[in-house]
């Protein structure tokens, strides 16, 4: 277990530098005028230009620039948005509501995926199974830009079941609709993986043994099959966090939730380059850390990894 953690941590450090370098390179490498990339067509004053040049060390070499950027990230200094606010402060403000939104989404997605996935796998070929597969196909094909506004229109405005927008201090009920939209981004894949995994495990030899042991069907599935089947699903949830982050940008914009995604959207729209780079970098780090946690969870669930 210890060796696994150490190896995984080393990997993560490597990926951290790789990923942040990637983000930085995507924005600044081989650029005639990095300032223009940052601010787009937004007019800026000479003093702003000078401040940006200093902030991003644009007069230094590219690798030095990158080094200052990573140093900033690690010390929590994310710089200043073009609006003049500190990016770290904006992030601190926006963070809680996004966290709540994503957590609700994960719970919704995982519950539906695991319950329906297990039932589907047990009753393969049944009406329930075929209907579930069909619905997941539709959900899978729904881009978030379609789903979020349509859900708001149908359930928020036309039917009025949920408030069509949610504020900074939104409660669970207000966040339910946007969270469900967000959950739909990942629920289809999670469900399909659960179904495939349970179906595969149901055919495993150890299930035959469990039945030969005279265990009840509920225990065979709930204890023996489920634990094995959840291993790939857990890994998937790690990857899904990335999709949820991306989805949150559109969802928060549509439902007017002043979270991280909403700020990022506004940053893109107002050509606020420093804000975009800062927020994206932090999200990448959060993504990496969460994936590390998921991987450790994976090791807890699967002893074969633990004792490698």
């Amino acid at each position, binding site marked *: 277990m210890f060796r696994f953690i150490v190896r995984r941590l080393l990997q993560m450090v490597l990926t951290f530098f790789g*990923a942040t370098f990637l983000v930085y390179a995507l924005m600044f490498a081989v650029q005639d005028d990095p300032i223009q*990339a940052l601010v787009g067509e937004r007019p800026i004053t000479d003093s702003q230009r000078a401040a940006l040049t200093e902030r991003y060390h644009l007069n230094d070499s590219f690798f030095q620039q990158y080094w200052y950027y990573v140093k900033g990230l690690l010390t929590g200094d994310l710089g200043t948005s073009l609006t003049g606010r500190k990016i770290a402060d904006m992030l601190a403000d926006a963070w809680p509501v996004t966290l709540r939104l994503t957590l609700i989404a994960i719970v919704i997605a995982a519950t539906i995926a695991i319950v329906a996935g297990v039932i589907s796998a047990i009753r393969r070929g049944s009406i329930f199974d075929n209907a579930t597969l069909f619905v997941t196909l539709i959900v899978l*094909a729904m*881009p978030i*830009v379609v789903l979020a506004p349509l859900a708001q*229109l149908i359930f928020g405005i036309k039917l009025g079941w949920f408030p069509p927008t949610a504020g900074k201090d939104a409660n669970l009920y207000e966040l339910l609709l946007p969270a469900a939209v967000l959950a739909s981004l990942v629920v289809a894949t999670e469900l399909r993986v659960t179904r495939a995994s349970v179906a595969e495990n149901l055919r495993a030899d150890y299930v035959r043994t469990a039945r030969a042991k005279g265990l009840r069907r509920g225990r065979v599935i709930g204890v023996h099959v489920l634990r094995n089947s959840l291993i790939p699903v857990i890994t998937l949830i790690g*990857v899904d966090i990335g999709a949820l982050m*991306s989805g949150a940008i559109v969802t928060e914009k549509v439902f007017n939730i002043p979270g991280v995604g909403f700020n990022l959207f506004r940053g*893109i729209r107002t050509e606020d*380059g420093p804000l975009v780079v800062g927020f994206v970098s932090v999200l990448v780090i959060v993504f990496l850390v969460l994936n590390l946690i998921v991987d450790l969870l994976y090791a807890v669930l699967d002893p074969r990894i633990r004792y490698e």
Partner: protein
Amino acid sequence: MSDMNALTAESPVLQPAPPGGAGKSRSLAADAWHDLRRSKIFWAALVLIVIVLLMAAWPSLFTSADPHDCVLSRKHAGASGSAIFGYDFQGCDVYAKTVYGARYSIVVGVFSTLIAGLIGLAVGLSAGYFGGWLDALLSRFVDVMLGVPFLLAAIVLGKRLASNPENSNGVLAVTLTLGILGWTTAARVMRSSVITAKNQDYVAAARMLGAGSGRLIFRHILPNSIAPYVVVLTILLGINIASEATLSFLGVGLRGDAVSWGISISEATGYVRVAPGPLIWPSVFLAATVLAFIMLGDAVRDAFDPKLR
């Protein structure tokens, strides 16, 4: 179907029977085509795709109106004449805009998928075939790419490419963004199927008979690893169309005078309370197009790999 799986896995009783059932042995591709022909999902996807392709190639077949012919006095006017979906907030014909929106979706989708497919093929094939340090390096690089959530990377790259003034409508920028960032899955799938194919006995035999790398790759390995790759690309095409719409919605995709479902949806979200039509129609067309490609990929994969059903 499930019966068959349970049987082969559960008990050895069918082992003596020849593969492919009652004595008929077909090639994998022929078998897949046989399954595919009977798949309703496959045909539904195909019909949808043909319609969208026609729309993209000859939009005038579907509407005589000009999507750029906007008259503010018609703002949010209801359906009239050929404008069966009414008018949007600028007084443009929603139906015409929706029909013309197919073009950029398809163009961006197809070309970005081609770029991603080529990069994925090159990376996956070389990593899988040559192995060793090259594989380690490329796999690490893919890991790093996967360390950045796709849309976040696309926002940064899209923003940067879009800031180039030569890109008036953003088509090139979006295509490049999606192509450069979207190849990882294709590469991974290609790599793993190349490794599987490489380790087959017949490939080892061909190698021992003195076949060179080129011959091994093109005659023996590629034909046996191309199916999952094609499936991934088909689905990627659908995903790229969705991503284009998302990026356009966010403002780092298509811009200016480009007619795009993503832009239409973005514009319409501000007016859903007064006029839901301009939101609904591009949404429906976009979802149907994405669905068609994902359905196609799904059907093809099922046909090639009945195990997954």
